C-alpha cells in the first residue's frame, strides 16, 4: 500500500499441482499464515522483492473448479471478486495439463488478469511431452511461464512476467471461451441485463451470467435482490427449456461439457503425448498399497506408526515439559513471600501455562506425520481403504485418522478434522472424537481397575471401556447423521493424487502452523479455564484449617522423635488438611451440590469433586481423589489411594466400573473444549455436545452401576 510498486498476486490451482511448493519457492521465508475471514481455511501470504517491486503473494486453497461446491472454492471466488488482486497466477500441473485446464477456463471466465505457471516442467520434459507454449498462450489468452518448484527453475522468469504484465510491457489479447449457440445466446443476453446494475460492477457480468446458468446458489442469492432479476429469471427458464428440448440436458451440464470440449481442442492443438506407454510409479505403489489382501494391513500399519510416533515419542517430551514446569514452579516458589500470590503464580499461572504447553509435542509430532501422509498422497488412499466401514456410520473415510488419533489426545485429533471438506462430516467427527478414550483417562482406569480387579481381569475391563467408547462414538455419529446433520455429506468423488516425495520444508511449515494456531487461539481459552478451575478448587480458604494444621505440626514435632516418621506424619496431616480445605472450597460445595444427581450412579460428593476438577485435565481426577479420600483417614501407614479406595465401604466394584464409564464419556478437559470451540467457530454445537456427553455418561453409568450391583 505504501508505494505504487506493490503488486498483489493470488496463486490459484488444483490440489497437488505443486502450488504450495511454488509459493514457497517464490516467497522463501517471507511468509505468514492466517485464516480467510469466517472460515477455518488457512491463508498463506508472503512476498518477494524483485527489481524494486514488492510482489505480495496470496496462496489460495487448492481447488479443481470455481463452483460453489466447497468452502475452498467459495473462498477463492470471494477473494478474486472482492479483494481484486492485481493478477492471478494459475499454477497448472504440466504432466497432467488437460484436467488442470478446467480451473483455467473458469479463471478466464472471471476475466481476471491471468498468468499461467506451467509447473513441473522438468517432468514434462522428462516424460517427453511436447507442449506448444506459444499456441497455448494464444488459445488461453494469457502468458505461460514454464516452472519447476522442486528444481527451482523458472522462478525469476515468473517474477519477471508478473512485473512486465503489471506494467503493461507485454500484452496478450484475452481470449473468450465460447459455448454452444443456445448457451452463448443466453449468456450474452443475461450478461447484458446484469451489466446495467452498478452494484454488481466488481463482478464480470459474463461470469455472473454463466454462474446463473450453472444454477450457482451463491450467485443466485447475490443477484436475486435486484429488480432486474424478474427478467433474468424468465430468461433462465427459457434457456433451460431450450436445452432440455434440444439436448435432454440442463445448461449446467452443457456448460461443463463445452469447457471440456474447449480443453480437448486445446490439447489436440498444442500437446503431443509420447507413444511410449509406461507403468507409472503411482501404479506400481498402488498395486501393493491398495491391494485387496495387503491394503488393510498396510493401512493399519501406517496408522499404528503415526500413533506411535505421536505418543511414544511425544510422551517423554510431554513428561520432560511437565518436569520442567514442576522444577520451574519449585524454583519460583521460595521467591514469592505472600501465600496468595505464590499460590496464584505457582499453582495457577505456571500450572495453567504448563497444562497448555505440554500438548505441544503431541501436536507437532502428529502434524508432522499427517502432513507427510497428506503431501505424499497416502492420506486419500487411507480414506479409500477404510471408507466402506466409516460410511456405514454416516462418516467419511477421511474421518478415520482423526478418530484414531483421539485415542492419544482429543486436541490434535480435533484439529486434524480439517481434512474433511463437508461441514456436517467435520462436525460429526469432531463430536465423536472425545468418545475415543484419550491417554489422560488411562491413569483413572489403571487406578480403578487395578484396585478392584485381578490383573488379568483388569486388562479386559480396560479393553471393554475402550470398546464402549468406540461403539457409543459410532452410534452417536449414526444418530447425528440420521437426524440433525441429515444434510448432504461430502461425496467420495475424490482424487487419489500421484505419489510424491513431500518437500520437508512444507511439512514442517504445516506442523509449525498448527502448533502456533493451538498456542494462539486455544491457549487463551484453555488458560482462562484452567485458572477458573484452580480458583474453584482453592477458594474460599478456611483459615481455621490452616491454624489447625499449624497446631498439628507442632504436636507431631513434640510427640514424634524419629525424623522419617515425623516427616511422614506431617505429610499425612497436610493431606488431611488439604482434603478438608478442598471440601470447604467451591469445588467441594459443588460436589456436595451435585451429589443427589450422581447418587443414582453410585457416586458420593467426593467423586463429584473429582469430576469437577477433572475438567481441567483427566489425570486430575486421580490426584483429586488422592487428596479427598485421605479425608478422615486415621491409618497413617497406608496412604496409597488404591488401598484407601479398597477399604472405603462406599466404594466397590460397581462404583469403580460406573466411574470408569463416566470418566470415559463425560465432558473432556477444558483444553479439548477450547479447541472444539475454536475449530467449530461457535459455541452452540459445543454446548450441545457437552449436554449430550453428560447425559450419555449418566445413562451409561446408571446402567453399569445397577447391572454390576446385581451381578457382582
Amino acid at each position, binding site marked *: 500500500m505504501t508505494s505504487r510498486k506493490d503488486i498483489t498476486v493470488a496463486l490459484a490451482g488444483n490440489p497437488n499441482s505443486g502450488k504450495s511448493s511454488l509459493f514457497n519457492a517464490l516467497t522463501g521465508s517471507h511468509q505468514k499464515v492466517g485464516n480467510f475471514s469466517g472460515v477455518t481455511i488457512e491463508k498463506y501470504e508472503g512476498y518477494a522483492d524483485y527489481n524494486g517491486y514488492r510482489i505480495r503473494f496470496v496462496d489460495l486453497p487448492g481447488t479443481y473448479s470455481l463452483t460453489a461446491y466447497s468452502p475452498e472454492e467459495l473462498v477463492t471466488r470471494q477473494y478474486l471478486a472482492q479483494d481484486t488482486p492485481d493478477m492471478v497466477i494459475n499454477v497448472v500441473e504440466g504432466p497432467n495439463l488437460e484436467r488442470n485446464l*478446467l480451473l483455467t477456463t473458469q479463471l478466464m471466465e472471471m476475466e481476471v488478469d491471468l498468468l499461467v505457471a506451467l509447473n513441473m516442467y522438468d517432468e514434462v520434459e522428462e516424460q517427453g511431452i511436447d507442449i506448444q507454449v506459444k499456441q497455448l498462450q494464444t488459445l488461453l489468452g494469457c502468458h505461460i511461464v514454464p516452472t519447476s518448484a522442486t528444481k527451482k527453475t523458472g522462478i525469476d522468469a515468473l517474477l519477471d512476467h508478473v512485473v512486465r504484465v503489471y506494467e503493461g510491457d507485454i500484452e496478450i489479447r484475452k481470449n473468450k471461451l465460447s459455448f454452444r449457440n443456445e448457451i452463448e445466446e443466453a449468456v450474452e443476453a443475461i450478461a447484458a441485463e446484469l451489466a446495467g446494475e452498478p452494484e454488481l460492477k466488481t463482478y464480470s457480468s459474463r461470469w455472473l451470467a454463466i454462474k446463473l446458468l450453472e444454477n450457482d446458489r451463491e450467485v443466485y442469492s447475490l443477484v436475486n435482490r435486484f429488480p432486474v432479476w424478474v427478467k433474468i429469471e424468465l430468461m433462465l427458464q427459457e434457456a433451460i427449456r431450450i436445452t432440455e428440448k434440444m439436448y435432454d440436458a440442463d445448461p449446467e451440464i452443457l456448460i461443463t461439457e463445452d469447457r471440456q470440449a474447449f480443453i480437448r481442442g486445446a490439447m489436440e492443438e498444442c500437446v503431443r503425448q509420447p507413444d511410449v506407454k509406461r507403468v507409472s510409479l503411482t501404479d506400481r505403489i498402488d498395486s501393493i498399497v491398495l491391494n485387496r489382501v495387503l491394503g488393510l494391513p498396510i493401512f493399519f500399519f501406517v496408522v499404528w506408526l503415526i500413533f506411535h510416533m505421536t505418543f511414544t515419542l511425544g510422551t517423554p517430551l510431554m513428561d520432560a515439559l511437565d518436569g520442567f514446569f514442576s522444577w520451574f514452579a519449585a524454583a519460583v516458589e521460595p521467591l514469592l513471600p505472600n501465600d496468595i500470590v505464590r499460590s496464584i503464580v505457582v499453582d495457577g499461572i505456571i500450572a495453567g501455562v504448563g497444562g497448555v504447553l505440554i500438548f505441544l509435542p503431541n501436536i507437532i509430532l502428529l502434524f508432522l506425520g499427517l502432513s507427510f501422509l497428506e503431501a505424499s498422497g497416502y492420506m486419500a488412499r487411507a480414506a479409500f481403504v477404510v471408507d466402506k466401514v466409516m460410511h456405514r456410520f454416516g462418516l467419511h473415510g477421511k474421518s478415520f485418522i482423526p478418530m484414531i488419533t483421539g485415542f492419544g489426545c482429543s486436541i490434535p485429533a480435533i484439529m486434524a478434522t480439517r481434512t474433511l471438506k463437508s461441514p456436517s462430516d467435520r462436525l460429526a467427527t469432531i463430536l465423536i472424537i472425545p468418545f475415543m478414550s484419550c491417554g489422560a483417562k488411562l491413569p483413572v482406569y489403571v487406578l480403578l481397575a487395578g484396585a478392584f480387579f485381578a490383573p488379568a481381569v483388569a486388562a479386559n475391563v480396560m479393553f471393554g471401556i475402550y470398546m464402549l467408547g468406540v461403539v457409543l462414538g459410532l452410534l452417536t455419529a449414526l444418530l447425528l447423521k440420521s437426524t440433525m446433520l441429515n444434510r*448432504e455429506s461430502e*461425496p467420495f468423488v475424490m482424487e487419489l493424487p500421484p505419489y510424491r516425495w513431500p518437500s520437508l520444508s512444507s511439512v514442517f511449515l504445516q506442523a509449525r502452523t498448527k502448533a502456533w494456531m493451538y498456542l494462539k487461539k486455544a491457549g487463551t481459552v484453555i488458560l482462562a479455564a484452567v485458572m477458573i478451575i484452580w480458583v474453584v478448587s482453592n477458594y474460599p480458604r478456611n483459615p481455621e484449617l490452616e491454624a489447625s494444621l499449624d497446631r498439628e505440626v507442632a504436636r507431631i514435632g513434640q510427640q514424634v522423635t524419629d525424623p522419617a516418621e515425623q516427616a511422614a506424619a506431617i505429610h499425612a496431616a497436610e493431606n488431611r488438611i488439604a482434603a478438608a480445605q478442598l471440601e470447604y472450597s467451591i469445588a467441594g460445595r459443588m460436589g456436595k451440590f451435585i451429589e443427589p444427581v450422581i447418587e443414582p450412579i453410585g457416586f458420593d460428593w467426593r467423586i463429584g469433586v473429582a469430576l469437577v476438577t477433572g475438567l481441567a485435565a483427566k489425570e486430575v481426577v486421580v490426584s483429586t481423589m488422592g487428596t479427598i479420600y485421605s479425608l478422615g483417614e486415621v491409618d497413617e501407614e497406608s496412604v496409597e489411594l488404591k488401598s484407601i479406595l479398597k477399604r472405603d465401604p462406599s466404594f466397590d466394584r460397581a462404583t469403580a466400573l460406573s466411574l470408569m464409564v463416566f470418566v470415559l464419556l463425560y465432558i473432556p478437559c477444558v483444553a479439548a473444549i477450547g479447541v472444539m470451540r475454536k475449530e467449530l467457530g461457535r459455541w452452540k454445537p459445543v454446548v450441545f455436545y457437552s449436554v449430550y456427553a453428560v447425559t450419555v455418561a449418566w445413562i451409561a453409568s446408571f446402567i453399569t452401576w445397577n447391572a454390576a450391583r446385581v451381578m457382582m
Partner: protein
Amino acid sequence: MLLSELNVGDKAEITAVRARNSVRRRMLDMGLVAGTRFKVLRVAPLGDPVEIFFKGMYLSLRKSEAAEIEVEKVGHVGDGAPLGRQEKRRRRFGGAG
C-alpha cells in the same frame, strides 16, 4: 449400462451423469462428463469404493455414486483401445496381474 456394473479392467465412455446436486457438481468438476473415457482400476479391499483412471487422474468414487453414471463399455485392457498412456497391464482384484 452403469459405471457400477463394470468390472475391474473394463474401459468405458461416459454417456450421461444422472447424479443430482453437489454430487453431480463434484463429478462435473472432476471431469466426469459425457465423452470422458476411463478405465476401472480396482476395488477397495473392503469392496467399496472403486478407483478409475482417466486423463492422468486417479479418481475414487463409491459404488452408490458410480451407479449414477451411465457408461458404454468400449473394451477391456489389452484389446488395444486407445485410452490414456499409463496403462499396459491388466489388473485383477489381487493386483498381481
